């Protein structure tokens, strides 16, 4: 009898050991895979910093503020590209933000549920189309159309402003900004729609009970409540616009110059990397392009973190008020 118990006990202990061993292996494996995600991000940053070092050492901080980009004489300055990225993203946001807010309000406040789902799906499809396809369409359709109608209209009536002066061309900063706008709208509007949907019904009902019209309800209850989420969505869209490469490279004209006119060709951080990286000859040239990538990486990370904190703040607000 006693022997039997001992055998069973040994057997059980063996099983438990095997099981604990299996659990430990499983935990270690998933831990390792999760660690890869962490390591990748650090490896990304370190690899870029190391490879950008020659350029950083040679030019120092002035890399960011000089505007010569002269591969022939091996002189590199990032200013034209920082300017191009800033202006093309600004154009994109100027167009995309009002439209995205309109879309988000229409989906969350106006459309009945069945319609809202279908429209939301169509807007999401805009984000699914590959950017090279947008670029192709922009080269052959959008760019020429903008030149013939929008740019000539702006030039005729607002041509006294330097930003709308100068020759109208199909490839330039303005075309790039418009394509970017189309590409970031789905991102901004989908976050905004989600933010508006978490505004508590009590807030809306309170406004309506005070006699507010629908629009007044939106202005008094929905927009203020979702404000930090809206700003987060815009910053998220900005992050997308900064990093978008191929569509911009195809329509911006790729010229490293700073011009007052929005219609003139320009180049962005991402577009110049796409265009020149594979052909870069000298080591300093490659290193300078990687330094541009490092600027892009830094901007991308900072904007993303800020945006996520802001959007998360709205969710927390809802959690607090529901208690």
């Amino acid at each position, binding site marked *: 009898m006693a022997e039997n118990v001992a055998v069973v006990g040994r057997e059980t202990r063996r099983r438990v050991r095997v099981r604990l061993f299996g659990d430990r292996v499983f935990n270690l494996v998933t831990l390792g895979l999760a660690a890869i*995600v962490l390591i990748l991000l650090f490896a990304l940053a370190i690899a870029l910093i190391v490879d950008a070092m020659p350029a950083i050492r040679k030019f120092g901080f002035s890399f960011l503020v000089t505007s010569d980009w002269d591969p022939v004489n091996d002189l590199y300055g990032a200013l034209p590209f920082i300017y191009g990225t800033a202006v093309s993203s600004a154009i994109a946001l100027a167009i995309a933000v009002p439209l995205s807010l309109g879309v988000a309000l229409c989906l969350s406040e106006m459309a009945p549920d069945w319609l809202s789902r279908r429209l939301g799906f169509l807007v999401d499809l805009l984000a699914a189309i590959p950017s090279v396809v947008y670029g192709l369409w922009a080269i052959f359709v959008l760019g020429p159309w903008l030149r013939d109608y929008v740019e000539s209209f702006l030039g005729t009536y607002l041509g006294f402003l330097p930003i709308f002066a100068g020759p109208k061309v199909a490839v330039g900063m303005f075309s790039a900004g418009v394509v970017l706008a189309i590409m970031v709208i789905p991102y901004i509007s*989908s976050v905004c729609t989600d933010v508006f949907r978490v505004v508590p019904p009590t807030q809306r009902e309170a406004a309506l009970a005070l006699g507010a019209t629908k629009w007044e309800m939106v202005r008094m209850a929905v927009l203020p409540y979702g404000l930090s989420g809206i700003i987060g969505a815009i910053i998220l869209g900005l992050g997308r616009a900064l990093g978008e*490469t191929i569509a911009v490279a195809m329509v911006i004209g790729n010229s490293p110059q700073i011009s007052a006119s929005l219609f003139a060709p320009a180049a962005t951080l991402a577009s110049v990397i796409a265009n020149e990286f594979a052909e870069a000859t000298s080591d300093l040239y490659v290193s300078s392009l990687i330094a541009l990538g490092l600027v892009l990486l830094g901007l991308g990370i900072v904007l993303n973190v800020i945006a996520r904190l802001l959007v998360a703040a709205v969710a927390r607000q809802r959690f607090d008020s529901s208690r």
Partner: protein
Amino acid sequence: MAGTVYKESSHAFRKFKSDFMMAVTVAATIVTLIPLFLVLGYLVFKGATSLNWAFFTHMPTPVGEKGGGMANAIVGTFEVVGIACLIGVPIGIGAGLFLAEHRLGRFADTVRFCADVMMGVPSIVVGIFAYAVLVHPMGRFSTLAGSVALAIIMIPLVTRTTEEMIILVPHELREAALALGVPQWKTSLSVIVRTALSGIATGVILAIARIAGETAPLLFTAFGNRFWSTSLVQPIATLTVQVYTYAISPFPDWQRQAWAGALVLTVIVLALELGVRWVTRAPAKAAR
């Protein structure tokens, strides 16, 4: 009180203003959707007229020679994306599983944060990274470098959707399995993951749709190839890069083929997106 705030506005005016603003939101939605229909319309119109059987079966021809196709680029896209999946899917699902099972740990928080940050890294920067760690040391562009770049883009997407899908699995299922004496690892794999499998698969397919349309990270990793690529350490042609090269070329015949390539590419990507939504019916949003 309301009377003092809106002294100047009669009721009729306020009503009109409200209706007007609401009409503006509808107009914004319509304006936003116009480019979608224009892009798809032009693709079908220009792409379909340029598409023929040779496009799928023939190799690219030299400049000036008419005809030819993108057979190698179509196969190349499947190859690069397939290898990216082999690398990215196990890592993504494993990391997502870890995050879901250790929701509150500090390490898990850090990993989750890193995954979110990685989604904000521009894809061209990922291309530079793959160049720096694979192309530069090996001395040549390669299929492997392109796949690694795409895998890095894919990993955070898969990680976050896997985590979200696993969290949705009711706790009682796990408790029931553990109470029956099933080891923890077996519970995770054959109960939890299995229950969440369709959601995880949705996330993976959406991530595939996303990387299949990427061009920037492939420009100086997979690079492009006018011939069949027979090895992992050779450059390889892909649809996206081929469309890019042809679109910015000055030759009408290449531009015509760019439209055809863009149509094929879009059909592949949209088929994945629509297929997955149609099968699951739940509007699962890829984490952004």
